[in-house]
């Protein structure tokens, strides 16, 4: 977002934006898939163990949590907001749901999922109300909620290490259960992703989310109930993070008040790698889910190849790259797609002149990336 442009903002040809967006989105998704396939091929060539069924199952099952939370985050990011509180919501929900077993022996598992969902909904409601009604920047609100929810978490469970042995086997088995070799949780999350993708693509209110993210002022003038839509996005994000918390509890045996600390950054990384523009208005949940899958696969690949897990963190830097292509500034689709190719290990995106110019050419008046509503 910089200003050294000699092009006038009006100098951009109003090409058919719908088709361009479609092309770009598809190119992005294919780009991620390409990288994913390449990664799997290379890793398997070096270490055939990587393609072992149990490893693939583990990758899919552990992606499920990230993909689920990333779906909610995508809804929020599309509206040009950001939800930094998801990590804390996952932590709180994980603690509460694990504590349910401690408090009520033999509690039914669906009830635990409902409780987790409820916890997430409550958090999402609070965040949504403050953001939408107070019209304050979501970055600040969710940063505050990150603290508050984590603090509430600590108040509820104390800072010890509860629930390690109170979880029932059937609960822990949720994470490991498979149908036809595919983990249950992965199937369930894939269904959620499909529904969310269909909603965003087809439903009027789904399209309105994109409109809000592209240009909040225009959306307001266009009669879109901005506040309500953003509120809805935050509630959804909270709810999915709440469910994610229960998944977290099934996945990890030791759960304490620091569970899922810092998860929000991984989720945002997955979302941005998945091609969702951090300034809103473009991206898809399928991309976000694939982004989560890609990051998880990279982690696993590095583990299999014997690279210490310390190193995996730097792979999130490509997160920054995803935003390179912004369909709001119509540019030839081929050019938009280029930065997605290439290795995810590259630290710096190739600094192409067209890219830096494009990123500022389309911005009419410069606006802050995290303006409210």
């Amino acid at each position: 977002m910089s200003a050294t442009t000699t092009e006038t903002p009006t100098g951009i040809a109003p090409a058919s934006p719908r088709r361009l967006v479609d092309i770009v989105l598809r190119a992005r998704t294919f780009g991620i898939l390409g990288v994913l396939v390449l990664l799997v091929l290379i890793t398997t060539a070096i270490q055939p163990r990587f393609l072992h069924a149990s490893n693939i199952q583990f990758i899919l099952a552990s992606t499920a949590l990230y993909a689920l939370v990333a779906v909610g985050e995508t809804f929020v990011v599309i509206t040009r907001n950001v939800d930094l509180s998801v990590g804390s919501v996952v932590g709180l929900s994980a603690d509460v749901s694990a504590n349910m077993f401690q408090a009520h022996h033999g509690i039914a598992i669906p009830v635990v999922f409902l409780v987790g969902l409820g916890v997430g909904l409550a958090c999402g409601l609070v965040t949504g109300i403050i953001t939408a009604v107070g019209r304050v920047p979501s970055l600040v609100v969710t940063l505050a909620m990150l603290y508050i929810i984590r603090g509430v978490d600590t108040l509820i469970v104390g800072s010890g290490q509860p629930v390690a042995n109170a979880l029932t086997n059937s609960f822990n088995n949720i994470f490991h259960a498979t149908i036809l070799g595919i983990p249950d949780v992965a199937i369930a999350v894939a269904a959620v992703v499909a529904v969310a993708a269909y909603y965003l693509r087809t439903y009027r209110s789904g399209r309105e989310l994109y409109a809000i993210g592209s240009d909040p002022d225009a959306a307001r003038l266009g009669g879109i109930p901005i506040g309500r839509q953003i509120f809805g996005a935050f509630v959804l994000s909270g709810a999915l993070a709440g469910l994610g918390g229960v998944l977290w509890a099934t996945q990890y045996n030791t759960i304490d008040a620091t569970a899922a600390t810092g998860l929000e950054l991984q989720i945002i990384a997955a979302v941005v790698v998945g091609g969702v523009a951090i300034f809103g208005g473009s991206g898809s949940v399928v991309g976000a889910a694939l982004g989560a899958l890609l990051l998880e696969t990279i982690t696993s690949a590095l583990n299999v190849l014997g690279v210490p897990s310390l190193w995996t963190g730097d792979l999130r830097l490509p997160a920054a790259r995803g935003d390179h292509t912004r369909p709001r500034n119509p540019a030839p689709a081929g050019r938009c797609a280029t930065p997605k190719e290439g290795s995810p290990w590259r630290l710096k995106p190739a600094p192409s002149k067209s890219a830096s110019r494009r990123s500022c050419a389309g911005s009419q008046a410069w606006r802050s990336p995290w303006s409210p509503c």
Partner: protein
Amino acid sequence: MRWESGLAVALVAVLIFGNSVSSQFFSSYNIFTLCTNIGDLALLALPMTLIIITGEIDLSIASVLAVSAETLGALWTHHWPMALIFVVCLAIGALAGLINGVLITRVGLPSLAVTIGTLTLYRVLANVILGASTVSNFPSPFNNLGVTGFLGISWLSWSVAIFLVAALITGVVLRMTPFGRSLYAIGRSQEAAFHAGIRVKRTKLLLFVLSGAVSAAVGLLYAFELSSAGENIGIGFELQVVTIVLLGGVSIFGGKGTIRGVALAAFVYAGSRSALLLTPSFNENDFEVVSGGLLILSVLVPNAASFAQRARILMRRGQIRNRRKLLALADAEVLDRE
């Protein structure tokens, strides 16, 4: 009322509250602890303020701090001279900031995404530099920074003393120099600033380099204060620093904010934390709720006026539309009360 005046009132209130909670609050030991807790965060808040004023953000500061601290540890175990270590650490910090800045200004990526990425990247590098070991045998004048007061003043920590000087300089630069004023111009409208002849990209790049270098310097200071450099040093600092800056009345949209406000906010933050910790039945983790609440208040309060106005308009609109309904409701309420 100006935001800074409100903060000054809040600071006085916090001090009175602290004194009423415990007579220990104003003991020189407690004030010293308070100072050591806040000095480093406040120092990090200075470049962060400048960056947020230009409408960007730098979330990688804590990781740069860690890189610097762990480089210090690693080089010290290899018996490098201290002066050389300082130079190397500051250079590494500046380089880290330069990478952020180039990605943001020259490649044109959003600072939020870039610095979230480098937050993890630099943290990983830091852990690689020193591994799982912890270095704590720093030489004596440095090792005492966290224990002895500044120039023999027992309640004033070195970090806060350095912060006060640095804040004064930053405040003067921000308020009285063309460079400082240009930051506000950039934050208000990047396009307008550019057309007014301000070198927007170069200024931002400079700020990110500055932020990196300051973070590295604070990393050294912090390691000396703890008299150890190890894994996870300074983890999560970035969010606390952003909290302090926003609490200081700096607008996240850019173009607004003063160093005075940030300095006051730092002391309100530290004071309320210290006072609350002195109350029985309050533990450290509960403060997260308080700081989160403060953060929400800091954005809600400036909006309160417009919010009230909007509510009034909505109510009026609603009244016209549903006057009958409202009247009926009001009647029911009156009846209830009777």
